[in-house]
């Protein structure tokens, strides 16, 4: 069988991945009401919407980069110590774009790969009379097609926008960089995804293994932290670039020229504007040519390796019981809402997609807290940054409420057969949102205390926002429960319903943001009053008799 046949056969597992991503039948969900024949087209449409959303974000990033390229080096004049030549500026902007694209695609891949694995779509093919080469091709094509819209967005939109900003030659010269972005991000997703199945999902319970799993899961945050890092390190990067252009730091030029993705970002810049501001010697040109070819070869190798290896991800190996007599295990049942919280934390510790959501607001606070600590401009700035960290923690924790509910997708039907009231489930998950917020807030408090001798400012701010965060979590979860009840569909993952998750998070975000805005305009008392009022209104609505 050839590639054409593999492409045709890959449609079936691909449709199954969409189907399972949306309806999660393999995790035990029941068919929603409505004609069964409409389920598959609806699933395909919803996954296409999600992929469209990610493609749109990538296109907007390219548009933003093109706008910067059009504006030229003056856009960063206030950030850099020395004058930045236009070509160096272009290479810097494209380096940022490539880096963010890699991080975003990698992050998307980390959400998508578990869906591919849990769908069980590929192992079904193994028992059919299909030759080994075709099976590998089908698996590779399914993996590639999971990213089809985002890949097309990067591949088409980036050269077009850059071409419009810098000319057709530059647009064409973007292609090698874009190709490596796709190859490396898919390879990174695959490597980390495989690590997840082998080391984390299959990890035994008990003992201190949960802590070890959480430590492993920090790896999952690398792309997200990288994303934040690229954005926040932008000004510093342009400063470094200006040092390189002015020749103030020895050895910086060769390092930059050989570093990915700057090497490939130089190609369109050189194509459009000539020299970067530093004269490339013969050795410099050779270095650029070798590094570019090297990255392209590496991308080619990575693509082939991923393509051939997707099939091997398969399922978890069967559990081999530990040798020796089994220990006397003990059950420590907790009350229902706490049992839900514990179950979610345990699930998250073996499910990187969820662990990511739990850890991101906390790590974000650590990052901003550390910036606060390092900032030398005084306590006033430190206080501002500390409060900003609390604000971002509140908004991030709120934004991820819907995802915490989607943990219930796992064995959704079994959970519904238990005498577990909706109130207990909502309370358990809202507690998770609040826990994440409080942890993040306390970290900020701890770090900023070293710089700002006014703990009550932070403590008061964190406490005043707390009711609003709880109200936001309750509102989102209340909407989700009603929605799931009415439609019989569990709340989807990123692949199956990014739009839905976004829409449901918006009212929660509005609730969490309102007191923060009021604090800016009317002060702390107004903030606290609105926060408490929100909770007083939302809690009875969601948890009271009229609630779900």
């Amino acid at each position, binding site marked *: 069988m050839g590639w054409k046949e593999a492409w045709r056969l890959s449609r079936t597992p691909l449709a199954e991945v969409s189907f399972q991503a949306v309806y999660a039948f393999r995790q035990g969900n029941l068919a929603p009401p409505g004609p069964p024949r409409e389920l598959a087209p609806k699933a395909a449409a919803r996954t296409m919407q999600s992929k469209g959303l990610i493609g749109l974000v990538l296109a907007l990033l390219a548009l933003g980069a093109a706008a910067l390229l059009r504006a030229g080096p003056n856009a960063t004049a206030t950030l850099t110590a020395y004058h930045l030549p236009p070509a160096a500026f272009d290479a810097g902007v494209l380096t940022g774009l490539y880096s963010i694209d890699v991080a975003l695609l990698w992050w998307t891949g980390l959400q998508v790969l578990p869906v591919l694995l849990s769908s069980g779509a590929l192992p079904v093919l193994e028992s059919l009379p299909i030759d080994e080469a075709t099976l590998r091709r089908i698996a590779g094509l399914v993996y590639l097609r999971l990213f089809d819209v985002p890949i097309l967005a990067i591949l088409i939109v980036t050269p077009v926008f850059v071409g419009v900003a810098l000319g057709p030659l530059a647009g064409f010269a973007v292609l090698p960089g874009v190709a490596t972005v796709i190859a490396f991000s898919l390879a990174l997703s695959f490597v980390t995804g495989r690590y997840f199945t082998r080391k984390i999902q299959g990890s035994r319970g008990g003992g201190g293994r949960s802590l070890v799993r959480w430590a492993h899961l920090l790896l999952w945050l690398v792309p997200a932290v990288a994303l934040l890092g690229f954005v926040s390190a932008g000004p510093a990067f342009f400063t470094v670039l200006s040092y390189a252009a002015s020749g103030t730091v020895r050895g910086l030029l060769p390092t930059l020229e050989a570093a990915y993705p700057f090497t490939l970002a130089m190609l369109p810049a050189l194509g459009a504007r000539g020299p970067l501001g530093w004269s490339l010697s013969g050795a410099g040109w050779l270095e650029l040519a070798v590094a570019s070819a090297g990255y392209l070869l590496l991308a080619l190798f990575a693509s082939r390796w991923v393509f051939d290896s997707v099939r091997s991800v398969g399922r978890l190996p*069967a559990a081999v019981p530990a040798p020796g007599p089994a220990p006397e295990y003990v059950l420590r049942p907790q009350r229902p809402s706490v049992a839900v919280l514990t179950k979610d934390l345990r699930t998250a510790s073996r499910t990187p997609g969820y662990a990511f959501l739990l850890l991101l607001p906390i790590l974000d606070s650590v990052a901003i807290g550390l910036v606060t600590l390092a900032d030398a401009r005084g306590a006033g700035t430190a206080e501002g940054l500390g409060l900003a960290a609390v604000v971002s923690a509140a908004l991030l924790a709120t934004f991820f409420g819907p995802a915490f509910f989607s943990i219930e997708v796992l064995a959704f039907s079994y959970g519904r057969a238990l005498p577990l009231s909706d109130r207990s489930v909502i309370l358990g998950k809202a507690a998770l949102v609040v826990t994440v917020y409080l942890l993040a807030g306390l970290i900020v408090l701890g770090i900023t205390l070293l710089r700002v001798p006014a703990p009550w400012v932070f403590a008061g701010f964190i406490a005043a926002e707390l009711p609003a965060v709880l109200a936001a979590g309750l509102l989102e979860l209340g909407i989700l429960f009603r929605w799931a009840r009415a439609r019989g569909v569990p709340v989807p993952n990123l692949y199956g319903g990014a739009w839905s998750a976004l829409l449901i998070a918006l009212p929660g975000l509005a609730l969490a943001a309102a007191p923060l805005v009021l604090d800016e305009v009317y002060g702390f008392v107004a903030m606290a009053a609105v926060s408490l009022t929100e909770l007083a209104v939302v809690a009875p609505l969601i948890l009271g008799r009229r609630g779900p």
Partner: protein
Amino acid sequence: MSEARPNDPTLPLAIESLTVDYGERRAVDGLSLTVRPGAIYGLLGSNGAGKSSTIKSVVGLLRPRSGRIRVFGLDTIADSTLAKERIGYVPETSLLYEALTPREFLEFVAGVRRLAPAAATERMRAYAAAFRLESELEEPIAALSSGTRQKVLLIAAFLHHPQLLVLDEPLNALDPRSVRIVKDLLVRYVAVEGRAALFSTHTMGVAEELCHRIAILDRGVLRAEGTLGELRARVAQGDASLEEVFLRLTEEDEGLTAAVALLEGP
């Protein structure tokens, strides 16, 4: 047998005129049946007969189009949480939180069912020992075989010593030793005052061996209901096996010989 009142709080299960639809397709059509204390009640039917839809309606997973279900007098929709407290359920497929280990899963179930730690631990150990599951209690469920998952579901169903067991093909994927344990356990379990079991299966031998009363469903409709003796009488064959009775009542015996002949090829 005297007529039981559906709202009788001692009556394990009363289903009245149950109708379940999936879109335009009717899965269960006006089913009524009663499970009395001390009984193992078998639901028999071909694929798509409506057994699982009936069971999912009983445990609250499906909302029926019409009809009423009461568990010990409690309406399964109006008093769903109270009704679920009295039920132990084994689903047709291994619906489990795969990211948890069996011990973590059972701890979650015990928490939701508000069991005391000592009792929950003692029961988990006893059932795990019976099913030889001790060494796999800390493995992630995702990595367990289907038979082992089924054992975990069985333990979860028995953990709170429910008054009504609702078992959807509970012997699926189990090894012969475990099948024997479940069968013996069921017989002893319902012998305790006030308990009962609703049991669906394709396996006629199991139903014949275990069930006190049997309902035969066919394309969502109740074709016959009664003890094995009563069902035999319906087809006027005193020594017929349950399989023969089933095929006759569902009219699936017609054309059976021709179908087999067709499979033998020209």
